[in-house]
């Protein structure tokens, strides 16, 4: 049900933070992290995950396999 950020690739540019419709992204310990409880994969807001679309480093915002895919209510 969520995306995650690969910390080692994140440039800390903060672009994703502003684009997330659910305020799921914040800075923690010098890098940006996604709160899996808040991330809806942008479903219901946009066609594509905003963090993925805006992130300057490919494959940095990725599906977190530790969680099942988000199911819209």
């Amino acid at each position, binding site marked *: 049900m969520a995306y995650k950020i690969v910390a080692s690739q994140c440039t*800390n540019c*903060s672009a994703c*933070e502003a684009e997330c419709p659910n305020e799921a992204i914040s800075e923690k310990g010098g890098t940006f992290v996604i709160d899996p409880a808040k991330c809806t994969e942008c479903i219901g807001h946009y066609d594509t995950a905003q963090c993925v679309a805006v992130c300057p480093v490919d494959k940095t915002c990725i599906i977190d396999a530790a969680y099942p895919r988000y199911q819209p209510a």
Partner: protein
Amino acid sequence: MESTAHHEAVTSESVDMDAIMQQVAEHKGCGTSSGSGKSSCGSSAGESELPPEIWEKVKNHPCYSEEAHHHFARMHVAVAPACNIQCNYCNRKYDCANESRPGVVSERLTPEQAAKKVVAVASTIPQMTVLGIAGPGDPLANPAKTFKTFELISQMAPDIKLCLSTNGLALPEHIDTIAKYNVDHVTITINMVDPEVGAKIYPWIFYKHKRIEGIEAARILSEHQLRGLEMLTERGILCKVNSVMIPGVNDQHLVEVNKAVKSRGAFLHNIMPLISAPEHGTVFGLTGQRGPSAQELKALQDSCEGEMNMMRHCRQCRADAVGLLGEDRSAEFTTDKIMDMEVNYDLEARKAYQAVVEQERQAKVEAKNEELAALADETSDIKVLAAVATKGSGLINEHFGHAKEFQIYELSAAGSKFVGHRRVDLYCQGGFGDDTALETVIRAINDCHAVFVAKIGGCPKNDLLKAGIEPVDEFAHEFIEKSAISWFKTYLEKVKSGEIQHFTRGDAEIRQGALIADEERKVCDGV
């Protein structure tokens, strides 16, 4: 081939106020004056050629006015790291080519920290007159942080001019806010007006919640850039255009860009060389896209020059006002220390300093005109370049061996004309020991006939002579243009009498990177 960045580093030895005033008072005859920021300093525009309202805006701007460049400093703060496009010359892990200091991690500040830092530095350094928000990132992709910073600064330090650099994508939607905060200088980086060219420079943009790629992305970007430029011009906001010259991609095309931006009211066009090396990790760096040589850059700038004011003194840097404090003092302005500081902003003292500079500017123009009279009867069409080792103030006042950069002047019967800077310090290159330092310098000024220095040792002197570059130390601590013109007169006489033969010289290499404060250099070395 390496490519480069320039920068402006107006360095002064001391921050002692008396010393600064003294220096200003002594500063006469630096004829690099072109009030408009035109590159052609010797021959070009001052007050008279510009509409008064534009002159008023540029005369103290260290980026736009070649003349002001010697007296004023600007400062950039990095508050806006997010970006809404991707450029092939950018690796945002490090920096944005809007500012062009690859390999240097900028300190990220909150708007409150940034405002306090600006005011603290400005109250120590009267030269600090311009605050810019540029990269890394795009200020308009971070509108809340950018405008909050402007708001705070305009409250605390109303005499500081505000400027911002943008890729232009979000420009049209923010025009009114830009006008509201009295931002009077906007720089747009425009590398193309043809989406086919653009697609080779920009892999994607993020627009209306979508990532858009290819020609469509470049089309939208270009449309927004040009519309934003028109809207700024309509509102009387000064607008400069930066272009990155990418050989084989947009080099020829930049002549068209020049026309397009001129017709929409940009008052300056600054063509910068691509900065590209594999270690930057940029797309262009990794694909081996080269930057232009010094000659290629100058040829392109010359071909655009008739079209509009070109800017060559821009050294693509942050012109960090903190640099004015000297390396040992920049440590006093770390974020932690600034947050604890009590700042007393003395508007009157700053005004007094600026008035002295204004007088100085007048005196300088007169002195230059006297010098030029000496060349009045000259008809030779010989043109040569000369490199000058200077610490600033328009004087030949740097030792050859200490110079981190050289100013380049073109000398001809028309006088002297400032055409750019050449980096020679070893910034981030690694592997350049002392033994090759001299070769580095020679490569960087290989297109020059002479190098003017305050002092030079016997060994480098011989090596320079062998390379065909005349080391000139007889004008130590004198004014640059006055000395250069005087040397050039003698040169022409010698050519005429047959004592020497005139040869054209080869091309030179543009070195990468901007001059940076020591603190940052350490960061950079660690990368």
